[in-house]
């Protein structure tokens, strides 16, 4: 028997027995599952930050109070922070933006474009 196993793939294996879907459209369920996995990873990251902050305080590097009350100290820092938020939201809500762009400026399908190009 093989000793080295592909644990990343195996960890996400499907159990035997057909998976139930509860929403009318299975796509909703799929997106929900991906979203919840990401929500979980965000919680994991938050817990890690909590550990880091507490260790920094314990070692006298910085107090949690200092972290809690920290605000940007100059214009550059303010902009860096707000830029990060804007980029982050843009990434997360990409599909909403794209649907809005499509609404404002309806596109041809790629099949239609292929036919068009075929004539070019």
């Amino acid at each position, binding site marked *: 028997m093989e000793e080295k*196993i592909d644990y990343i793939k195996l960890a*996400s*294996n499907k*159990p*035997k*027995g057909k998976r139930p879907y509860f929403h009318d459209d299975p796509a909703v369920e799929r997106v929900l*599952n991906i979203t919840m996995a990401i929500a979980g990873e965000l919680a994991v990251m938050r817990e890690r930050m909590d*550990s880091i902050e507490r260790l920094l305080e314990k070692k006298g590097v910085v107090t949690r109070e200092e972290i809690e009350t920290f605000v940007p100290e100059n214009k550059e820092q303010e902009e860096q922070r707000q830029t990060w938020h804007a980029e982050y939201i843009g990434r997360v809500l990409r599909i909403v933006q794209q649907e809005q762009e499509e609404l404002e400026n309806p596109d041809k399908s790629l099949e239609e474009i292929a036919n068009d190009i075929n004539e070019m």
Partner: protein
Amino acid sequence: MSTRNLPPVYNKIAQHAVFPEMNHDERARYNFLANLNKHLAHVSQGNKVAFENRVAPQFEKEHGRKMTSTEELKEAISKDSHYQIWSSLRRSTMEMRQQAGRSIVLRQAVELRDKAKNLNKGKDSLILDDNVQVPPYLLACDNHIMPGSYHTELIEGDVTPAANYDTGLFVTTAGLLGRYSDGGGKAIVSWVKKTYPDFNPKRILDIGCGMGHNVLPIAKAFPDAEVIGIDTGAPMLRYAHARAMDLGITNVKFMQMDAAKTSFEDESFDWVQSTMFFHETGGKAIYNIMNEVHRVLKPKGLTLHIEQPQYTDDMSLFEKFIRDWDALYNNEPYWSKMHDIEPVDLMKSSGFKEEDFMQIGAKAENDLDDGSQKADEPEDHGRSPIWNVFGAIKN
């Protein structure tokens, strides 16, 4: 006392020599999932409101009558948006729990195997038997949606199914089974000692022992008894034995056997126990196993079986339905059928007498309970460690 209802942090779980190594993120992932499970128990309360306020009235409007079966209820509620989101989140949480557990244990499968192997080496108290077949009811689907279930071996001498199970019980029950997940075994020991103070069993059998978490409290409480745990899953038994060795409990043997056909002599045990076992068997097997329990039990011997709560006639259709959710959607399918059998009839069919039948309620003994879990908690149907125990004295 906090009014918030928080699960204990994962690092409170008891460690032992075969417990998987877990890093910071892996513990954090389990903390998230335990909290999510607890949160969803509250979301589940909305199902009853949705049922009463819109599902049932809509059904009555359409059909001119009330619902009469759980099948009708299932059909109607499956279109309700609250039920849909709760169900999909609950299923998703269970899948994430399996993924998280397996990603912990599979990355160290070889190390865990070797740790178990070292603890088990040269001991005659672990008896595996290649000829024992996994019963068909365990092959039909992967119980608890654990990919590979209790028996699949990914490497030679694998223990990862048990290691995964061991890490995750804490998460599914939000810590309510205690540090060693042994709240069921402890509860039964307390009840037996209180009810039968003079009972001094010499030989005890635990059927479907899995990773041995509920048999160890029994072995510890009766140190002079010879205790035997049986299961068909070799990975479970290897891990159970290594775990028992490390925890210093040496009066328990783990043997690979099918509970429906053991090799034990007639009337050779004073006590035969099972904990959350029968609902993971099958419609014919359950009778065969109970026959075997009766056969191996000595006259005046005790048998007890911790199970899911019984359905009663006064239980509402809704409660019956929601209690069955895990049966179908967390892959414990026989549980949905076992309700049709009255435990007293099951026991009578094997030769126990009606007047010797007993049935009691039990709740897990939780050594992690520090009072912070007591605030107004709804029962998480199918998960809360509140059980029905049935059994008999053999006369």
